[in-house]
């Protein structure tokens, strides 16, 4: 069942009634291998917790990984951003562009419910796959476990070693198996182009790394939980051009397997790296809103909206 020859098609036999364990979801050839680190339980004990819901990743490439429908985010009296209706295609890089203060980061953080503790109220619908992120019976922790996030300034956990940093997400989610943790860490670090640099100092503090390396560590940390979507909030803004270039290459490579949403105020970066672009601007009431969205080539070459044209040709923002 696993060895599909067709590229880009993943079959995840997961629905509300399906068993949750990998060992039960894969074919017999894989079962022995995965038995190494899955803790098998009796069928009776593998009952779904009522509070959890299966989060099924998209089945086909091209089907959106995340959809936003008429999303509006308010802080107290102040509306930060509104009229956001957007579909983020799976395994592509979508850049959220626009000048600062137009709500790009606000929208990004709404996707993984980071506004829960900052007092922002999110209206409208956000779906991850076919799950309503803000439904009353959706657990925010589980949503966030399917989404990886990289912040503007690198923020590795200062009191943890490099290895502990990378495995932190796995450990938070209850994974204790050492072999699995090590395997996941190495894979994530390789994907972040960091393995060769840190493989001999996994137990050192993360703070000795340079800024660009720290940011790649944060990317590795987010990758380790095998998310479906990666949210990146201006990941290169605190970095020098060399480090920026490395991370842009990373993004391009990662996009083959993970959906990436990238907030950037740098139009050139968006042009270099993204497949699609969503333009955010301030409307007349100085409230951010989504003006236009489409393939990056179109947005930059032949935008439909007049405001987009102004922004892209540098008249605004």
């Amino acid at each position: 069942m696993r060895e599909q020859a067709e590229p880009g098609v993943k079959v995840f036999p997961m629905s509300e009634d399906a068993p949750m364990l990998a060992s039960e979801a894969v074919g017999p050839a894989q079962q022995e291998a995965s038995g190494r680190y899955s803790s098998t339980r009796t069928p009776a004990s593998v009952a779904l917790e009522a509070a959890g819901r299966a989060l099924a990743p998209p089945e086909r490439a091209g089907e959106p990984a995340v959809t936003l429908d008429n999303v509006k985010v308010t802080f107290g009296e102040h509306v930060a951003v509104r009229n956001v209706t957007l579909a983020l295609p799976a395994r592509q890089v979508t850049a959220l562009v626009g000048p600062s203060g137009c709500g790009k980061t606000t929208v990004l953080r709404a996707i993984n419910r980071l506004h829960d503790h900052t007092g922002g109220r999110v209206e409208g619908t956000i779906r991850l796959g076919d799950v309503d992120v803000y439904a009353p019976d959706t657990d925010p922790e589980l949503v966030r476990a399917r989404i990886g996030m990289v912040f503007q300034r690198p923020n590795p956990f200062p009191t943890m070693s490099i290895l502990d940093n990378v495995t932190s997400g796995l450990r938070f989610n209850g994974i204790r198996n050492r072999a699995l943790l090590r395997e996941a860490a190495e894979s994530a670090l390789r994907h972040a182009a960091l393995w060769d640099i840190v493989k001999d100092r996994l137990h050192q503090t993360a703070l000795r790394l340079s800024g660009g390396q720290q940011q790649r560590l944060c990317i590795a940390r987010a990758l380790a939980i095998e998310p479906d979507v990666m949210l990146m909030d201006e990941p290169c803004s605190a970095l020098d051009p060399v480090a920026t270039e490395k991370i842009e290459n990373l993004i391009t490579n990662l996009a083959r397997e993970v959906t990436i949403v990238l907030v950037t105020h740098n139009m050139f970066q968006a042009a270099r790296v993204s497949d699609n672009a969503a333009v955010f601007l301030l409307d007349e009431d100085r409230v951010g809103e989504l003006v236009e969205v489409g393939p990056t080539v179109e947005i930059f070459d032949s935008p439909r909206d007049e405001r987009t044209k102004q922004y892209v040709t540098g008249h605004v923002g």
Partner: protein
Amino acid sequence: MIGAAPSQWPGEEAATRRDWQARERRRPIIQASARRSLGRRRRAGRFVQVLCVLAAAIGLAPLVALVYYTAERGLGGLSWSFLTQAPVPEGIPGGGISTAIVGTGEIVGLALVMAVPVGLMAALFLHERRGRLATAIRFGADLLTGVPSIVIGIFAYALLVRPLHHFSNLAAAFALAVLMLPIMIRADEEAMRTVAVDLWEAGVALGARRSRVARSVVLRGALPGLVTGNLLAVSRGVGETAPLLFTVAAPSFAMTMLIYTDGTQPFPAEQQTAWTTALLLLLFVLVLSGIARLVAWRLTRRAR
């Protein structure tokens, strides 16, 4: 990657393919583990939450109990005559603590006269000089704040009581001054430092010479902070007993001493005196702290 079709299978490299397979294996395991452990993780959090609320309740209890019992037992003895009459010998009913109130006022007043100017000048010294001496003095002040008050009392005894062969309010005032001095120095310097930064620019921009600007301007601007810091130091000094143990001539000259000597006696009348005196002391200290905090709060509010 503009315009490329999404997701081509990257390559034939076996390693990459193995890695992809491994990750595909891991993903559902991770998600399952997240889901499975969520209940346990949340329950742990709720348990700790309960413990923390309990801890906070226990933490608040002593203050509540202290204020409550001191008020309950002390109010009974509070009267105008209590405040204005001198103490009478043991066993005879009546009398008050006027000598103690006056004595405490004298002692603390003397201590302030000694400590406030020195503290201010020393703080100015620290504020305007850099260098090792200033750092050493700062370190010394921090250490002195941690010296037990009883040790300071013994110091005052050795310096002012023994050589002169008699106890005195002066010695007591000296002990309190030594106690309050380091607190005042640090608080004063802190108040100045916060103000100085902005006023430097204003002063220097107007062409004033640095040394002139420092003194008057910084002092003027730091006034609220200075008041706060000194008030807090005073409230600490008023409540001290140990330094007075070795320096006052008689317990009836200081409120804290009176509480100690009367409170430890098995007679209800004396204990009542102790409670009422304690209530007066507590009220005074709380009001003083409250004023200091109010001034500090207004100061930070104006700053916004």
